[in-house]
């Protein structure tokens, strides 16, 4: 079976074979010299000629041995890289497991909220109940809910137990702006006092509402609630309509069955506050949006594509971080200037990202699919809904997904880096992105290598 990613041990065995061959050639090289030295001179008619042959043979074999040494080392380096990525993947899995446990706990609380058995107290209908395996039932309920969310089933509960869980769930559940709610019915809104352990989606589900309705009715910008908080419960017939600051409505995907995803509703607050601004952090500086298929990625706002890299990297090939664009694979930085946005978007930029009139929000889209360059707008100007690229699997990935990093900085800050080519880093407002400078768009940026 042909694999892009082979077992590092396999590479090490190959490196050892090469090393043994190298030693063999070195041994031959010594023998070659010795043959020349042992040849008698015969008045310079024999010995010197054989000696010259021995030396030349030795040089040939040593040259071959040197190349083999380099290649054995290269193989070991690739093996090290693969192992390093394995460790990162293990850490990622551990993090994912923690999140899943959190989600399961949320599921338990959900069961508690519905008054169903086998909630967090494990209490079932009888003394012998539940058996150990049954304690996973709430989690299974929750995973079913998550499945419905990820597959976009109509009528599924809409909630966001964790903004760092699966990004698509977050996409559905947590718009970045505060949408206005225009009541279309006449019923009086009810209210609900938040209890310990409540979640927004649990409350919404209990009252036949969507999270968007609940957030809209209460002016919530996130799914965070606290005990004692009183939430307005709108009538389920109320419909949240687009208002000031509303993100563009996702379009139907070009493939028909694949819905377009409005990445304008991805939240970045967490990344801004804790990770992205730390230039020395090796943390995952952004958010991953999982997906299957060629999901189109739309521009969130008005802006311009600052850089892009459509190099067509092999999926999962992580042996060379530099040439692999620091692991981002095919990727793109889009600058969204504050000044170019609608009033509603400016409000978001200002209130949530702290952007000023002279600032821009820079989004970096990583692991994109190949071949998007041909479809980019000629002037690289984008508007909300402009398809930038499609989700891919390039660079450091364990599967198709979109990596999004965000940064706020002075407008035109990307261009300001023209005077400092070669760093391989994109600096914006004290933070850093690892980014290989390329200039396929003719912006005057000097490549680093």
């Amino acid at each position: 079976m042909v694999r892009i990613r082979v077992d590092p041990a396999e590479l090490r065995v190959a490196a050892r074979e090469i090393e043994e061959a190298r030693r063999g050639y070195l041994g031959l090289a010594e023998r070659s010299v010795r043959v020349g030295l042992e040849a008698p001179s015969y008045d310079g008619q024999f010995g010197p000629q054989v000696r010259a042959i021995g030396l030349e043979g030795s040089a040939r074999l040593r040259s071959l041995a040197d190349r083999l040494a380099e290649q054995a080392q290269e193989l070991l380096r690739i093996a090290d890289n693969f192992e390093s990525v394995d460790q990162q993947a293990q850490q990622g899995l551990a993090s994912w497991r923690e999140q899943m446990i959190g989600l399961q706990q949320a599921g338990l609380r959900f069961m508690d909220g519905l008054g169903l058995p086998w909630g967090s107290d494990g209490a079932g209908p009888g003394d012998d109940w539940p058996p150990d395996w049954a304690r996973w039932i709430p989690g299974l309920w929750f995973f079913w809910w998550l499945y419905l969310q990820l597959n976009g089933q109509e009528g599924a509960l809409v909630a966001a137990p964790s903004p760092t869980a699966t990004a698509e769930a977050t996409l559905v559940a947590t718009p970045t702006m505060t949408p206005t709610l225009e009541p279309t019915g006449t019923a009086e809104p009810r209210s609900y006092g938040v209890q310990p352990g409540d979640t927004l989606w649990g409350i919404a589900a209990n009252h036949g509402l969507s999270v968007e309705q609940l957030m809209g009715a209460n002016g919530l910008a996130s799914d965070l609630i606290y005990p004692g908080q009183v939430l307005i419960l709108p009538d389920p017939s109320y419909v949240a309509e687009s208002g000031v600051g509303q993100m563009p409505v996702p379009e139907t995907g070009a493939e028909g069955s694949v819905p377009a995803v409005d990445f304008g509703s991805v939240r970045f607050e967490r990344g801004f506050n804790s990770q992205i601004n730390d230039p020395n952090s090796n943390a995952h500086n952004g958010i991953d949006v999982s997906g299957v298929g060629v999901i189109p990625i739309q521009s969130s706002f008005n802006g311009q594509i600052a850089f892009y890299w459509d190099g067509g990297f092999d999926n999962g090939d992580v042996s060379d971080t530099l040439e692999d664009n620091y692991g981002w694979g095919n990727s793109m930085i889009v600058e969204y200037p504050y000044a170019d946005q609608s009033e509603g978007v400016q409000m978001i930029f200002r209130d949530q990202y702290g952007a000023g009139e002279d600032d821009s929000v820079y989004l970096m889209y990583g692991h994109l699919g190949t071949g998007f360059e041909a479809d980019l707008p000629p002037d690289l100007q984008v508007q909300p809904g402009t398809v930038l690229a499609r989700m891919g699997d390039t660079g450091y990935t364990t599967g198709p997904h979109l990596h999004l990093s965000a940064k706020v900085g002075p407008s035109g800050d990307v261009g300001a880096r023209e005077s400092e080519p070669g760093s391989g880093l994109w600096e914006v407002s004290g933070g850093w992105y690892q980014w290989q400078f390329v200039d396929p768009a003719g912006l005057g940026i000097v490549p680093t290598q």
Partner: protein
Amino acid sequence: MPYTTVIVRKARTFVPREASAAAADLRAMASEGRELTTRLRAVSTQLASSWEGRSSVRFLDGFQGQPPAGDSSALWFDAQSHRVSSMTVTTWETVPETVWVPES
């Protein structure tokens, strides 16, 4: 005194007896080099058949040139072995020789 004995120098061309030993050594080295090349080729084939991607291409681009280089070295040693085995030297020896001397 029609005959007399004189000392003369004569050239003698021959293949040194050490040549065959040296040639055999070089031939043996060619053979051992081929064995090493076979091992390298096996490594290359194994990697090429089970590993693809940019890392693989980059590595194998360089590495797949080594077995042929090994073969080339082996051929060279074989050629040198033939060359040494047929290498001759010329020595000049002084030997007594009886020659006829005409009477004056």
